[in-house]
């Protein structure tokens, strides 16, 4: 796959590589070396809330950005075809795919796990095989993740729910902050290439990096069955969603939410673009049919779908929760909705009996 | 070029784009009159005829700027002379407010103006429009500092 859509780029293939030590004062030199490679180098910018082109200097690696790194592989909006009408009204279609290599320095491990979630749907094993635009971006992206230290974890983080601290997701390199510098851990061929330009201290003994810090886990044992069993529990869903404002903040900052919309934009009468852009299951118009019928017309129904998608449907399809516990939705919510409250409300409900679940969901 | 649609940013232009929304019942006729009376009129004005200045949703003006206009002029009937009795009274409030909003976003005062020109004021139209286009040419093409 990789060589078909993007010949000549290093692969995502995992590698076993030695850890190396980068002195703290060499970080900027490494960034300069990464920036000198073909393509863009992005770093986190908390002011902008996202990843922006590196313009020199120390990157701001304290705390994660408001939005996740998913936009690198699944941009907020992306033209995937352009069309042009000729004088006879016949249309020519040009598929469009981005082809600029991107190195992203300073994503979090939750970002890296989030992209693994999106890989399920947009990758080769997704419902329609590899999505070309996604695959090209994904294969051209090198992710340098920074392991969290205790100072980076806050009360909104709950990533320990979804796996051990040494789960590095799709990171190509992990950088562990340690005394006096960083331990550099290449994980893939692309990561090896990125690490190769780091001015590491070859003579230094490489300290054993501590495990990345994690946010407190919540209990989700058996949630999939409980969610399905209590699908029709209107009181439960109305209760936990009553203050939701039905905006898209949680979905748009989420590292795993991938829903998109498709729209044509005419650039004058003869030509234009067809683009896809982020969409949110929180919006009332998201599932509204042309006839006016909306299977998820109420807030409670929409949020039920959101939680179910993350904790029941995705695990059913891919054996993987579509939540990484980064807490971005929790921090972003303008109405203090906390997905952990919902999960816990569901978990407080009784587990289904053997036939109980089915009895309740029968049409 | 701040706050201009991406697909328009690639267009490089030397001369400013100037758009005028003219009321069908007065200023549009006034412009016509100016033409038939051979009054001098700038050639680079793009005229859009509207049924009434009161119809002008100010989003039309914002969108015109978004699509790359460097100056927008709105001209309707003199207050009290609206073909629909009160359209321009409503327009006046909105246009005056918009005039204050636009500089907030770095769109210079003077890039947007509104005025009243009747169907018989061909000469006045010629003066208004010459003055306005001159002003926009002085301000030049919108670009970032």
């Amino acid at each position, binding site marked *: 796959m990789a060589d078909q859509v993007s010949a000549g780029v290093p692969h995502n293939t995992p590698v076993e590589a030695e850890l190396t030590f980068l002195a703290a004062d060499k970080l900027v030199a490494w960034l300069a070396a990464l920036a000198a490679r073909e393509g863009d180098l992005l770093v986190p910018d908390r002011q902008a809330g996202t990843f922006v082109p590196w313009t020199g200097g120390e990157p701001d690696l304290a705390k994660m950005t408001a939005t996740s790194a998913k936009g690198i592989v699944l941009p907020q909006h992306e033209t995937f075809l352009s069309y042009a009408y000729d004088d006879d009204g016949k249309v020519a279609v040009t*598929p469009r795919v981005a082809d600029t290599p991107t190195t992203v320095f300073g994503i979090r491990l939750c970002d890296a796990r989030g992209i693994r979630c999106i890989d399920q749907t947009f990758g080769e094993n997704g419902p329609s095989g590899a999505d*070309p635009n996604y695959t090209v971006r994904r294969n051209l992206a090198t992710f340098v993740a920074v392991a969290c230290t205790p100072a980076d974890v806050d009360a909104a983080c709950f990533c320990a729910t979804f796996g051990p601290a040494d789960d590095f997701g799709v990171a190509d390199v992990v950088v562990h902050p340690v005394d006096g510098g960083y331990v550099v851990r290449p994980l893939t061929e692309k990561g090896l290439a990125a690490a190769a330009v780091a001015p590491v201290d070859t003579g230094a003994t490489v300290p054993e990096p501590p495990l990345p810090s994690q946010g407190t886990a919540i209990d989700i044992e058996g949630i999939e069955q409980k969610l399905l069993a209590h699908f029709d529990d209107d009181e439960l869903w109305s209760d936990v969603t009553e203050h939701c404002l039905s905006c898209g903040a949680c979905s748009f900052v989420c590292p795993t939410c991938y829903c998109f919309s498709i729209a044509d934009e005419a650039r004058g009468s003869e030509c234009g673009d067809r683009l896809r852009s982020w969409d949110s299951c929180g919006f009332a118009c998201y599932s509204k049919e042309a006839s006016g019928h909306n299977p998820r017309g109420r807030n409670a129904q929409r949020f039920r779908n959101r939680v179910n998608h993350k904790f029941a449907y995705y695990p059913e399809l891919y054996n993987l929760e579509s939540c990484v516990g980064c807490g971005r939705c929790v921090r972003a919510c303008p109405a203090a909705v906390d997905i952990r409250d919902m999960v816990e409300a569901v978990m407080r409900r009784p587990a289904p009996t053997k036939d109980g679940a089915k009895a309740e969901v029968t049409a | 070029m701040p706050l201009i649609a991406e697909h328009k940013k690639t267009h490089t232009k030397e001369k400013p784009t100037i758009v005028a929304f003219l009321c069908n019942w007065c200023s549009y006729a006034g412009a016509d009159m100016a033409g038939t009376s051979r009054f001098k009129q700038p050639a680079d004005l793009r005229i859009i005829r509207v049924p009434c200045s009161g119809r002008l949703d100010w989003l039309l003006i914002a969108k015109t700027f978004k699509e790359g206009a460097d100056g927008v002029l709105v001209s309707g009937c003199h207050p009290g002379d609206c073909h629909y009795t009160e359209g321009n009274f409503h327009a006046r409030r909105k246009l005056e407010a918009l005039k204050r909003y636009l500089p907030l976003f770095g769109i210079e005062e003077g890039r947007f103006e509104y005025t009243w020109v009747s169907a018989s004021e061909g000469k006045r139209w010629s003066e208004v429009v010459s003055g306005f286009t001159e002003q926009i040419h002085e301000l030049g093409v919108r670009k970032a500092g």
Partner: protein
Amino acid sequence: MTDTVTMTPGQAARAKLIPQVGTVSEVVPEALDIVSVRVQLPEMPDFEPGQVGQLGIFGVGEATFVISSPPHERGYVQFTVARVGEVTRAIHDLTPGDSVGVRAPLGKGFPYRDWYGKDIVIAAGGIGMAPLRPLLLTLLEERDKFGALKLIYGAREPELLSYGADRAVWATLDGVDYVETIDREYPGWTGRLGMVPPVLEEEAPSAVNAIGITCGPPIMIKYTLPVFEKLGFKPEQVVTTLERRMKCGIGICGRCNIGHKYVCVDGPVFTLAELNELPDEL
């Protein structure tokens, strides 16, 4: 941030969001605010009755419609389109020769080959006939492989019954027991009166070795499914085809899910038994 370039042909072929550019060959008025659009495509796709496709007009957008022509009618694919929104309005304005974008087929069709040897009962309402027309025409094409064939087709008023030419044929055909009904009395209508669910109940087709299929407005489906059950049809014997808002049609944009199933790839055809396994979110 990044430039965009043309994909290689290999990439484009895999790009399931990229439509074929087709040419409209015919626009047939079917009913009030309903037309069928026939499109010729550079590469005619193979499809099954019940499958859907995306029909779009560049600059306006695309939307999902069921393919309303049967697979054995080669040379074009037909979509039947009710005028409800911006895209469908533009589709109604199409004339022969116009360029359109088509992505088809999408989803799964009716598993009619599994039904060889069985009686077939079809209950359709309004524009819900669109997915059932290609099914019926396919069944008629292979008529000897099936038992009794019954079609009940109803609408609110006569002007809302589609496929006039087909209906005229079905009414006289020996191979199919065709029942046409209008919800309530209507000036000039001398035929049968009654909504589809009660008419189905009156007709009382046998459930023995039979398959019941229904499509129509959500409310009609809701009341028809229990009638099939009442007549003795088991959930495995009842088939319906669902409407859901779709964008991508290939299972990745998110919005058409019912539980973990995506109507655009896992459907739109489902048996009642399959639906019973899913959350109740129609």
